[in-house]
């Protein structure tokens, strides 16, 4: 038993093992509380699909050596902007989604290029600088959302007719178009097959990229910049590619998130979202220097199920007032903190 425990820790790392155990504990509690287990699992699946690409966005930047992208909120803003443009163009359904994706990519590339200039000047402090860069851009865009001259009455404030609303409902636009694509209904609960499939395609593309010559160069630049330089690899260029890819995936990720969630959230909404993605990939066994698609998938499953299941379970245990919401925040941030302190450990 002791041996098994040790081997599990060695193989999967502390965060993964502890979080899985906590998850199992929650599930058992849920059974005792006579909750709808299948419902819980399906909710978890929806959340996993929702957040999937945002977590995937962490892979290229970690591999290229700039660490987890704490400034992913910048990429998310690009995606949100593209989503708003597609609504302004009065598009509906699948075309609306794909036009949004199509517009978001060039914006994210340009933003990523500019941001990587900064990244390459602050080597070693990317995470701290990235966090505050993300905060600054989110704050700056709070002004931006008010000033950009969108006209669509669905998006602007009803009174005054200027400036975008906090949340923009997507019903009638591209609400759940991917989720509903080929979905399966299980005892009244929906499994978002389309989104999961889209995520799988993105994973495959990123995996292919990592197996390419450029991907290998990025791997070398991230593992040992001095080795890379001595092998004639332009380290700054690889870091730029990693950052741009991360931003593009961030933009795609938030559009996918919005269609599943049903709303585009603006203003300060993207502020803390990078942290959720980062903790998911860290729990999945990634470190700030190394990450894989496997880390993304396992991290997503553990972290999002944890969040999805803990809320109703704690609600059942502590029915009074909004205490459950407080506990949820404690659990969520606790998991993030834990993942950050215990980052790595698995191979």
């Amino acid at each position, binding site marked *: 038993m002791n041996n098994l425990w040790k081997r599990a820790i060695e193989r999967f790392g502390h965060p993964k093992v502890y979080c899985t155990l906590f998850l199992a504990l929650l599930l058992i509690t849920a059974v005792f509380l006579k909750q709808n287990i299948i419902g819980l699992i399906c909710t978890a699946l929806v959340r996993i699909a929702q957040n999937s690409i945002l977590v995937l966005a962490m892979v290229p930047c970690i591999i290229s050596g700039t660490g987890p992208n704490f400034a992913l909120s910048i990429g998310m803003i690009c995606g949100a902007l593209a989503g708003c443009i597609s609504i302004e163009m009065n598009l509906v359904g699948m075309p609306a989604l794909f036009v949004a994706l199509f517009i978001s990519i060039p914006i994210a590339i340009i933003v990523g290029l500019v941001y990587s200039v900064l990244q390459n000047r602050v080597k070693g402090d990317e995470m701290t600088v990235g966090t505050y860069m993300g905060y600054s851009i989110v704050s700056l865009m709070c002004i931006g959302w008010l000033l950009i001259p969108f006209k669509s009455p669905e998006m602007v404030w009803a009174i005054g007719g200027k400036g975008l609303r906090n949340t923009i409902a997507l019903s009638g636009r591209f609400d759940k178009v991917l989720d509903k694509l080929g979905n399966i209904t299980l005892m009244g609960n929906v499994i978002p097959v389309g989104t999961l499939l889209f995520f799988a395609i993105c994973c495959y593309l990123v995996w292919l990229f990592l*197996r390419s*010559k*450029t991907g*290998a160069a990025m*791997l070398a630049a991230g*593992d040992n910049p*001095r080795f890379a330089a001595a*092998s004639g690899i332009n380290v700054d260029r690889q870091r730029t590619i990693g950052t741009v890819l991360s931003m593009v995936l961030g933009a795609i990720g938030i559009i996918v998130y919005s269609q599943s969630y049903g709303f585009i959230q603006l203003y300060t909404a993207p502020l803390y979202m990078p942290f959720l993605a980062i903790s998911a990939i860290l729990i999945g066994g990634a470190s700030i220097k190394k990450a894989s698609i496997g880390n993304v998938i396992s991290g997503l499953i553990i972290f999002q199920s944890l969040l999805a299941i803990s809320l109703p379970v704690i609600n059942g245990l502590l029915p009074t007032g909004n205490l459950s919401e407080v506990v949820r925040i404690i659990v969520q941030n606790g998991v993030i903190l834990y993942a950050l302190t215990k980052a790595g450990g698995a191979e």
Partner: protein
Amino acid sequence: MPKENEAQYVLELRNIEKEYSGNRVLNGINLKLNPGEIHALVGENGAGKSTLMNIIFGMPVIQNTGGYKGEILIDGEVIEIKTPNEAIKFGIGMVHQEFMLMPGFTITENIKLNREILKDNTVSKVLGPLLKTLDIPAMRRDANKALKELGMTVDDWLPVAGLPVGYMQFIEIAREIDKENMKVLVFDEPTAVLAESEAEKLLEAMKNLANKGISIIFITHRLDEVIAVADNITVLRDGEKVGEMTKEEATLEKIAQMMVGRKIDRIEKVCNKDVCKTSDEVALSIKNLTVHMPGETIRGVSLDIKKGEILGIGGLAGQGKVGLANGIMGLYRSTGEVYKNGQLIELNNPRKSIENKLAFVSEDRRGIGLLLDNSIETNIVMTSMQIQEKFLKPLFGIKAFKMMDNRLIREHAEKYIKELDIRCTGATQYTRRLSGGNQQKVCIARALTLEPDILFVSEPTRGIDIGAKKLVLDLLVKLNVEHGMTIIMTSSELGELRSVCDRIALIYDGKLQGILDPQDSDVDYGLLMAGKPRLHTKEVI
């Protein structure tokens, strides 16, 4: 000056032994120090000088690695020094090679650091001695006195930052002699960073100190300085004391010979001249190369490397021998001209160097040589894949997408694992988990994958055990003999160079001192390594 019969030595070391994890670095060292004596301690890098001084000064590294054996006597009494603080209490001071000064503090504050003169004030009388005020006039008086003893005229209230290097060295010494009971002062290569005139001044100051009764242990590589000031000279080699002589007996040649000695018998056969054709054709011509590698600067070296030879590059640490290969491979900023087969190679561009069929096995294996968190196969093919576009295949037939060809990579890696006998669990094992010798083999495999005409190997046996050492050296000879590869091998271990190289170039102070034959005498090697007369060189450049 030494008077043996008066018996009372200031410091005496008896039979000092020290092991680092089973590796004996000091073996039965005896040393006697009279009052007012300057005792020079010379030896190559790794001879054990620093370890001996660390023992005397009670550095924590000694205690942490299991302590030492033997006795240390001060004024005839056996003592045990466990911390630098205790050493200071016993009257032992150390002038460090790297300055240990606070740049933002004034000279006085540096000299008096942690030994400040204090006076009472109202608050300290109530709340205790920690709140006493500094007695600055008294501190400055002391500092000035110490500076004057060294013949320095400088305002003691200047901050240390921005002072010339020579001054900093003197401030270090002033700090030591300001300590009241100072008996023994250790100078660890004090002149290494000084200009010639400053060095002379320092030697003068040392003599003055000795005349005042302070004993000095003087560690240096500069043999002429030893001859100039030392009363007694002890020579260490491989952790053993190989000789002791007085000023009168000592000559440059004698010290040089003792210092180098012959360490390993020439077991490894020197490359057989019939098989590997060392022609007079020049493979690589270096003209006036300077390399700005911190700590290993090359200041204008011109050198011709012949096709098919193994050229050794030797010299003491910090003299620049490592800088040469790093400069040519574009890892550190360099100027000058390098021609390969008559064609100029662009400097400061690693890609160009590799494209010109040069390959490099770095001395900094874990720092530059390896991707520690990647597999052996990735390590081996990475450089070749990035620069020569090997091991790639198109994606679904589209040529623009270059994908890694896993099958080719695996085959290639397994070939080298077998050929070089890399001990591992498989081609996908991370290089971090390999032993030093096997890591080195991965580095060599990576260099060989580039199919170079000229291979640079720096410190190929550093940090690997003896068995693996021989394997690596044999491998180099084999590459040379069987494939006619020109090899330029840099090493701190002269014995190793002499066992495999055809010619050995010695670098001192960033300049080429001369090129010797492996059969040349120890004296010649010792003198060239210490940057001494060129009379003895066979080939003067």
